[in-house]
């Protein structure tokens, strides 16, 4: 049995695919609301005539907390979250641990080593009761104290802006789950649907690659410059 041979090139098949703009608008709105971009979501409602969907009501609070995390005001973010979602940190130890870790990192960034050491050893920080699977993360974080310039140490990525972004995302997802528990609605994925699209592509490409098929174009979503990758992939036109 002969292998399947596509009649046209991959870029041509991409171009011939017809998207409905309403579907893409819903996908974008879902991302804006889920990730807490309140102002953008409001404007998008007006400009594109798209309904906000669920979680629009809590977008303001979630946005403030995420913003606080992104700028390093971790204690303020935790206090705010505790007031809005009293049971948040009781039900999600993983997020609580990462928020405490981020507080420690901010102290190190501010060169307050003595304060950081006290916080790490204090009972309130909770590091002594950390799940064993997180010991490695605690060790990496404490290792920062041993360097004069910790941002250039082997564990320096913990002090990058991207790590704040990551923890902010985890916090947002935890708040959404907390909201879901309150409303008792059926569980739905806390990630935006756009992440499902990305995972679908990665899953499908890996499956075809594992079966040994090569009659498709593999898109490198991990490429540093996404738009350059897209231009290279679809330069057939």
């Amino acid at each position, binding site marked *: 049995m002969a292998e399947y041979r596509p009649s046209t090139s991959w870029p041509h098949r*991409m171009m011939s695919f017809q998207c409905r703009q309403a579907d893409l608008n819903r996908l974008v709105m879902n991302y804006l609301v889920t990730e807490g971009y309140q102002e953008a979501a409001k404007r998008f409602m007006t400009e594109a005539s798209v309904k906000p*969907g669920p979680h629009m009501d809590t977008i303001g609070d979630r946005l403030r907390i995420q913003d606080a995390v992104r700028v390093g005001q971790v204690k303020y973010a935790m206090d705010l979250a505790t007031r809005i979602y009293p049971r948040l940190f009781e039900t999600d130890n993983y997020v609580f641990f990462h928020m405490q870790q981020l507080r420690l990192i901010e102290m190190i960034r501010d060169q307050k080593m003595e304060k950081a050491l006290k916080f790490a050893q204090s009972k309130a920080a909770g590091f002594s009761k950390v799940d064993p699977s997180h010991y490695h993360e605690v060790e990496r974080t404490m290792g920062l104290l041993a360097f004069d310039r910790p941002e250039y140490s082997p564990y320096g990525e913990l002090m990058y802006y991207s790590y704040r972004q990551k923890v902010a995302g985890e916090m947002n997802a935890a708040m959404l789950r907390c909201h879901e528990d309150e409303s008792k609605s059926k569980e739905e994925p806390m990630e935006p649907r756009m992440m499902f699209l990305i995972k679908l592509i990665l899953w499908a490409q890996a499956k075809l690659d594992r079966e040994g098929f090569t009659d498709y174009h593999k898109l490198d979503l991990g490429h540093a410059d996404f738009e350059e990758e897209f231009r290279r992939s679809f330069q057939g036109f």
Partner: protein
Amino acid sequence: MENVEEAPPLSSESNSNSNNSSASSSSHQLSQSGAMGAEIAPSTSRSHSHSPTPSPPVPASSHDQPHPDHPSPPLNASETEARENSPHDHSPTPTFHQTAPPPTTSSTAPQRDEREQQQQQEAPPLQQDQQENSPAQDQELHPLLDQQNQEYPAVHQDQQAEQNQELHHIEGLIRHRESQNPEEHPPQASLENRETLGREDTNQEPDEPQVRDPEIEPEAEPPPPLLLEDLDEQDSGSQDLNEQQPPLIIDANAIAETIDANAVERIDDYEDDDEEVDEEEEVVEDRVDRAGEVASVSGAQRLHSVAVLPRYSSASRAPRSSNNNNNNISNHNNNNNNSNSNSLSRRTRHFYSNNGSHFSNDMFPSHNPRSSTQTSSPRVGGRRHHSTPAASSNSPQHQGVDPLRLLYPNVNESETPLPRCWSPHDKCLSIGLSQNNLRVTYKGVGKQHSDAASVRTAYPIPSSCGLYYFEVRIISKGRNGYMGIGLTAQQFRMNRLPGWDKQSYGYHGDDGNSFSSSGNGQTYGPTFTTGDVIGCCVNFVNNTCFYTKNGVDLGIAFRDLPTKLYPTVGLQTPGEEVDANFGQEPFKFDKIVDMMKEMRSNVLRKIDRYPHLLETPENLMNRLVSTYLVHNAFSKTAEAFNGYTNQTFNEDLASIKTRQKIIKLILTGKMSQAIEHTLRSFPGLLENNKNLWFALKCRQFIEMINGADIENVNNKVTATTQTMPTNQTSVIQSTKTFKHSKSGSGNGNVNINQTQQQNNTAIPAVIKPQGGDRPDIKNMLVDDNSNKCVEHDSNSMDVEMEPCQSHSNGGDSSSNGNASAVRNSLDAIDEEMDVDVSPSSRNCGRVIEKILEFGKELSSMGQQLEKENLMTEEERQMLEDAFSLIAYSNPWSSPLGWLLCPSRRESVSTTLNSAILESLNFERRPPLEYLVAHASELIKVIGQHSLGEDAFITIDDVFPQN
């Protein structure tokens, strides 16, 4: 003793005077045809005058003597028998009585002719019958007499039809001879004769062997006279000679079928066992062999006409012209038979039922009719009952929704069709199919393993089903219940049970074992027999198969299944019969849908939890959103989002806002302004892309028919609605009225006067709005810049305010095309009422003239593109559709009303937006759109490689629900 004395003279006369009797026969028919429009008596006397002329004086005198005594007793006897037999016999009798009243001499004339014909044909059997008992003679005489009475009305009624069909019959004969001459044809002819003999005898299977003896011998002896007659036909070529053939053949058929009918009646009274029927079939086969040896011309003709049907009806052969004619001949015989006696009609029904059954099996190979006929009931009633289930099984297919499509929504049947029934082309010869090819019956001997017989579907199971299931109900286990249900590959041999050979899998009913490409079975499940429902389920995600029995899951039977498997069922012993359900009916095992839903949620969950292994997926998604917002000119949203996410703009913000404005203008139907903005903001874009410019202008023309009316009607809508709400005229009529008023013709004046009288009381309301409109109208006429729209809006507001002050009804708005017509009609009235008519007149004509002028401009632009070979078929169709809108008085409800839908504007704005971005060296489509297309294509490739998961995921799963 008198009979004995008469026999020799009759035979001698027939031998020596065959031509004379033929001549008298033809004259008889001619006289009857003349009787159509004339009295019976005169034509009868004519025939009487002709008949004695050719005969010698001595034989004539001998005939005259016994006739006066002979006719009267047969008439009485026939009447008595007709009443005793059945009421059907009364139908021919009245016709006979109508001919009786004429003089005795005239009535005996046709009887003589008919009797002479019959005596001529039956001379040999009479001689033989002399050796037998006298009761035999008496039995034969009665049917002959009945036939005399019945033939008379038959000939009379079907005279015209016979003439036409005779011609076809003769043509068939000629071609038959021609086909026999070449060397290549004789072998085919012999094959046809054998097939024909087999089928003919099958039709006559209830006959007793004793009755066969006299029937076969007459066929052997008549050949010489027929051959002579055929030669005469070729030599003379006259129509009279041609007309001689049908009655002879009809008579022979009638006689044979009369005897057969009697035999049928006797057999029906005594036989009920199948074994006896089987024995008779064997006897029939022996007769077939004997009859095949006889090379009679008449037999060949009859057999050939019957043989034509399977050849003509088989799909594998191309129909020939001669087949059509022979088919007509067959119909001719049927028609004649139908018009004969009751016993003959019973026989005819039997024959017709076989024909019907044969045609219903057109999809079968040519050998099927015989086997299906053998198993069918010998009685006509049984056959009729058999056809009923087939009719009822048709009803599911006529339902609106296809249940298989609902079951397997992700299967693209144009590429991989679903199995829906058993395939008549993929089965063993011992298998019979019926009921839309869903029922399977075993027709072999079933004595050895090599007698096994299987059938499969026409198409393999598409892997895009994900989970596939079908059920088989055991109608009868037959003798031993050796049955197998399963799956087979392309090269499976059909004389095996599924599972015995390589790449075949089956679950067998006699021992409950599963067979996986081997004759040695594995213990699997319970046995199954009559009444059980066995289901077979294939899982294309993990390549396994399990069976169900009466709705109970029996567990996995096979693993590591290959792809491209066909549902298959195998039978082996007589009487075995099964029904299939591929999803047309609800399954006994009702968990298939739930299993599919679970598999679907599993696949979605697996993807949802798939590790992306990306360091910063948020950055990727933020970039996708930012580029999407910018691409579609959602400038404010893009500003806010990029501010949050620290992203930069590649395109100038002012440019984004300009594109947004143009898109908004298009989406609201203001094409002229959109084109103007494009020409000003992006110079050279449209000049370098004339096709795009042409497409925009086509849309502008459509919006003029749509939006132009709205803009112009705003001035008058309120006034016209209040003053003339019921005045509705088409655009064409309104135009005519306008022209009439312009020309000042008498008819126009009369119409306007009538309208004026009806609205005298409304004059004050009409005048008031006009006063307010005049300055605005003048401004509109003068101004041609972009401010026109602004003035129009303010003008509309002014008009709406005035009616509110003077009327409590408030303002009404209308987007109906008829509003334009109403406005034109109102303008026509204004022309009559006001001295100064130039503003109204110009305004009215201006709208129509603008549309027509723009149409001309558009048409010339199209012609220019044609010259430069830039016009595409799509654009040509677009132009034609746009122009067609003018033809409708109400274009919104016309067949082309979809052109006026707002959603049509989106594709125009998308095309223009992409062109603008391309001119600025940006991507035509946003990366997010490429990702969606990429994912959709990947799912398709997974399906094309039969990996199974594509059954449970589509690109729509990516988008959030509304």
